[in-house]
């Protein structure tokens, strides 16, 4: 016979722990809820069509928008992606293929360190490497700084996902007469692709929200520009500039910019999940 006497404290204890967990989850979600609430409630009123289609007006003139900054952020992010995705994925492949080697350990350590470097330091680095030789701020420098931030994230994500692919798939490919490189790129990388796509998009979302590396690389531009060698505006720097300005109208635009940024990040994360699920479902997982 089970003793009911001892069952009581056990059940109470269990309920207590469940309650504590629920409370912690709620506490963790509260800041997110507040951020979203403030950004939406403050930003939505300034989010007009003009905000998306017009460039900033001169100081004192009300209205205008952030078309140049939105395009700027897209260009900067695309540049960073073009630089970091190939390098990141290929180094991830290297790390997983030669995981035992000394050089791989060194690369892994370097990637982890780079991942922890404050973004402002990356900005300084890009300033020294790109801005100084070119003698002026440029889109290229901003994209470079963001790309440097992205590489270690993609490298480590790719490595970890490749290590999850069962070794049996590699053996299967080798047994059919595949070379090592062929096995990696035709079987192992595709098998890990859903996860890699998610990792890449999350890295994109993360760097799209960076301000510090752009402050003295791509700088800012009041005008619409798509030139790679000119300074360019970005949503983050524009929000920063407007938020510390003394003008009420600019504050409102800063909120609207923040809302656009949060939306971009959110859409990216959702797109990543969707894309990963779709790739996975095509394979019947």
């Amino acid at each position, binding site marked *: 016979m089970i003793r009911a006497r001892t069952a009581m404290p056990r059940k109470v204890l269990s309920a207590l722990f469940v309650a504590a967990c629920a409370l912690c989850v709620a506490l963790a979600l509260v800041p997110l809820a507040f951020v979203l609430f403030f950004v939406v409630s403050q930003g939505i009123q300034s989010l007009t069509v003009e905000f998306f289609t017009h460039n900033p007006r001169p100081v004192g003139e009300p209205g205008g928008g952030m078309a140049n900054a939105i395009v700027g952020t897209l260009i900067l992010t695309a540049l960073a992606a073009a630089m970091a995705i190939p390098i990141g994925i290929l180094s991830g492949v290297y790390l997983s293929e030669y995981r*035992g080697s000394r050089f791989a350990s060194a690369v892994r350590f370097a990637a982890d360190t780079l991942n922890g470097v404050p973004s402002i330091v990356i900005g300084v680095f890009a300033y020294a490497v790109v801005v100084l030789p070119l003698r002026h701020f440029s889109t290229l420098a901003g994209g470079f700084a963001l790309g440097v931030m992205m590489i270690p994230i993609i490298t480590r994500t790719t490595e970890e996902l490749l290590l999850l692919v069962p070794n049996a798939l590699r*053996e299967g490919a*080798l047994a059919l007469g595949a070379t090592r490189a062929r096995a990696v790129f035709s079987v192992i990388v595709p098998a890990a692709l859903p996860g890699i796509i998610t990792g890449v998009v999350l890295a994109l979302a993360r760097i799209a929200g960076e301000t510090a590396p752009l402050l003295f690389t791509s700088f800012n531009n009041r005008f619409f520009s798509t030139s790679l060698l000119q300074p360019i505006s970005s949503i983050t720097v524009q929000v920063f500039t407007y938020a510390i300005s003394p003008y009420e109208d600019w504050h409102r635009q800063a909120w609207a910019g923040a809302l656009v940024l949060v939306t971009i990040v959110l859409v990216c994360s959702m797109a990543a999940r969707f894309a990963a699920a779709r790739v996975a479902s095509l394979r019947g997982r």
Partner: protein
Amino acid sequence: MDGKVPQTINPPLVKVRALRAPDAGLRDPVLPVQAEPLKIDVEHLSFFYGEKRALEDISIKIQPHVVTAFIGPSGCGKSTFLRTLNRMNDIIPGARVEGRVCIDGQDIYRAGVDVVAVRRKVGMVFQKSNPFPKSIFENVAYGLRINRLTSNRSELAGRVEESLQQAALWEEVKDRLHESALALSGGQQQRLCIARALAVKPDILLMDEPASALDPIATQRIEELIYQLKVKFTIVIVTHNMQQAARVSDFTAFFWLGRLIEYERTDKMFTAPSEKLTEDYLTGRFG
């Protein structure tokens, strides 16, 4: 072992011959008549995982178009030996081979041998089915594509169909070739892996416990398949299941602690083994 061995002295021959034609004309395996050239000729092979010696001085001669079964208790080296026959052990760090493995008279461990060419000639089916996360069609087409064995689409499609038919899978999948291979059942996946191996037209097919993860019906299909395939291929199969060895093979090799204890015609080994150790194993006294 896995407890499947009945505790009788001579169990396997009672009902296991149903699948097989009477194998008249098989020659003594150890000293074959030289008229037909040997398919596989292994001489004094030893294999090391680092310092540990996993195989000790193994010599075996295998003729074309026969099925040879490797049996023995777990860890006896039968899988390791199978994998030396297409150099799959190369990818294990610290692995080392001594001795010779000749396929069609060519030592595959000689310097300058193209491992890729060896593996194309010596196909392999693994214990756990390992279809690629691609469609059924692409799984079978993989070996053809990477080795550029077909010159156009219709030829590729033809070879894929032919291979799936050889593996007795075509009827079940012909209407869903472009669906994921991972949606197939375990037995179908294993037959897909066999089709994939057959597509590149190897001479030799190595099978590492191909039915160990399958139910009895799927196992029976694989065994029937092996029987049909030996017309075209030379088959070496590792199995834990002695009845299976007796059912499908013409010759049986018994391994114990990394050594080849006995190599005989299957019917002779299962009725009158010459080694005491073999008899003890076959009758379930150990293993």
